[in-house]
């Protein structure tokens, strides 16, 4: 319990740290926000107009004044106005977030549905050729960068079947579920592939550990069927590291998959941040990165909680 309280106490401190890092970093990007916003038209501005715009976006003040204002706004749920979109930052983030969340959930689903049975198979066929095959496949899967896989999938589809992934205007789940799934399934497979490989590897090694435990041997000697031992006795305990790994990976995916979103032309959080950085959209970068870091930390905290809940032997406070 003390461990969790300590984690919770550090939480706001780390968030403030993150916000300061982002705040200072984005202001160190060469070039000014107004030129980035208006492009070549910025050259047509009179000094007075430029000044007025700086005042409007609050970037005429020193950075700590800007930070103070931003922090005060944050406490009121106001993340500022994006200079690229001319809309509240929070609104833009919340528009993009459902896609990222859906993609992360789909990828995790694929990873677990493929990875856990594959891991169990590899563990129960440890000395056999088929088990080795699964291990080799998992190792290759884990070493395949998602952007390489994305290009391979697109190439195979277009060269082999003459079809291209459904790009174009993105349709949210609640508007057109079928079209939405059609647009997200390939990116989800792309992201779920290496994820599934990690799940396979970790569930295999956890399963191997558990299978040599005394209680499994006891269950066997009591005449529990092989299938019963594996799925009812061994697997629940072997799943603990799988939960941890999936949680951490999920946290990463909630930050948006910059490159995969770029390749499949998906308007997710990752691309939002990338574009905002390139556009020097201060308010948007700050807001989006803080949002992502916040989610990431929450997920990691939940993973720790799940870890304690699943394994009563762990008393993290005593470590």
């Amino acid at each position, binding site marked *: 319990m003390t461990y969790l309280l300590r984690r919770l106490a550090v939480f706001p401190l780390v968030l403030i740290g993150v916000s300061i890092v982002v705040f200072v970093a984005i202001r160190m990007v060469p070039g000014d926000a107004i030129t980035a916003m208006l492009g070549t038209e910025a050259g047509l501005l009179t000094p007075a107009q430029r000044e007025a715009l700086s005042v409007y976006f609050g970037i005429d003040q020193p950075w700590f004044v800007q930070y103070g204002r931003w922090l005060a706004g944050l406490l009121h749920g106001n993340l500022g106005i994006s200079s690229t979109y001319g809309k509240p930052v929070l609104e833009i983030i919340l528009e993009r977030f459902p896609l990222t969340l859906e993609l992360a959930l789909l990828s995790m689903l694929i990873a677990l549905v493929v990875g856990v049975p594959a891991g169990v198979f590899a563990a129960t066929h440890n000395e056999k050729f088929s088990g080795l095959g699964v291990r080799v496949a998992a190792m290759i899967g884990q070493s395949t960068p998602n*952007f390489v896989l994305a290009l391979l999938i697109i190439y195979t589809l*277009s060269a082999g079947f003459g079809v291209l992934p459904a790009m174009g205007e993105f349709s949210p789940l609640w508007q057109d579920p079928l079209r939405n799934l059609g647009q997200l399934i390939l990116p989800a497979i792309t992201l779920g592939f290496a994820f599934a490989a990690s799940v396979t590897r970790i569930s295999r090694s956890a399963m191997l550990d558990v299978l040599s435990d005394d209680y499994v041997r006891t269950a066997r000697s009591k005449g529990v069927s092989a299938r019963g031992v594996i799925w009812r006795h061994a697997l629940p305990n072997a799943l603990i590291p799988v939960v941890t790994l999936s949680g951490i990976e999920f946290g990463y995916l909630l930050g948006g998959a910059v490159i995969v979103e770029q390749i499949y032309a998906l308007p997710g959080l990752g691309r939002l941040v990338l574009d905002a950085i390139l556009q020097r959209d201060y308010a948007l970068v700050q807001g989006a990165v803080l949002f992502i870091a916040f989610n990431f930390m929450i997920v990691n905290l939940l993973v720790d909680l799940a870890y304690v809940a699943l394994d009563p032997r762990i008393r993290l406070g005593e470590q």
Partner: protein
Amino acid sequence: MRMLRAIFAHPSGRIGGFIVGLYLLLAVLGLLGLTPHNPLMQYRVDRLHAPDGTYWMGTDLFGRDVASRLMMGIGQSFTVAFFSVAFAALAGTVLGLAAAWFGRRWDGIVMRVMDVLLAFPAILLALLIVAVAGPGTWTSIVAIAIVYTPIFTRVVRGPALSLKAREFVDAARTFGSSSSYILTRHLLLNLVAPLTVQITLALAWALLTEAGLSFLGLGTQPPAASLGLMLSDSRNLMETAPWLMIFPGLAIMISILGFNLLGDALRDIFDPRMRRAIA
């Protein structure tokens, strides 16, 4: 020597070691310019030439030899990966040892800063750093090093804390050994195993990040070659010249596979429970 023999006795160590060795050779040849063709030379008549005896991996849109560019790219990617991991390992070791040794306030400060860095998804932090400093080789090195430093700090701090409490450290203190002697001779030597494993895995990750940054146009800048950049350039020519995508894609994948296999083998070798299982 004993280490090499152990690696080659391990099945994944053998394959991983072979792949890494081969890539090192290609990287050195690429960096020295000992490539089949000049990687920057544009053979205009042979634009988008399919792979054959002259151009083993074909040529690109400008008529440049893909095999030569691939070697140059491997050299480039490995340079970034090695320097960034070296910096991260050095910084992480110093910070982790200092946090463990001096404890209390120093430990608190170091670890909170590391918590802040770890709160960013890695690629995002790298992007932010590259945006600040402008794209380029050195920026990639610094960005990847900063992203990976907290992980090395954690890998070092944990075991260093438990080593610090061990009897042999107390004994060394009683004999009047200086802090720096204990830190280097007693703590650091005992941390070689976890550090080696982490370095190998970090190299795989650094290669991946470098390729990702270059793919987004924020890493190595043209006309220099990098695996990520080659892959990114191949996107529009995928159907007419698939070799532009396939070779760099495979090259990235196999290099990461090599380091992952080697890392796995090293972990097994250093873990005494596993060592017995292998022997």
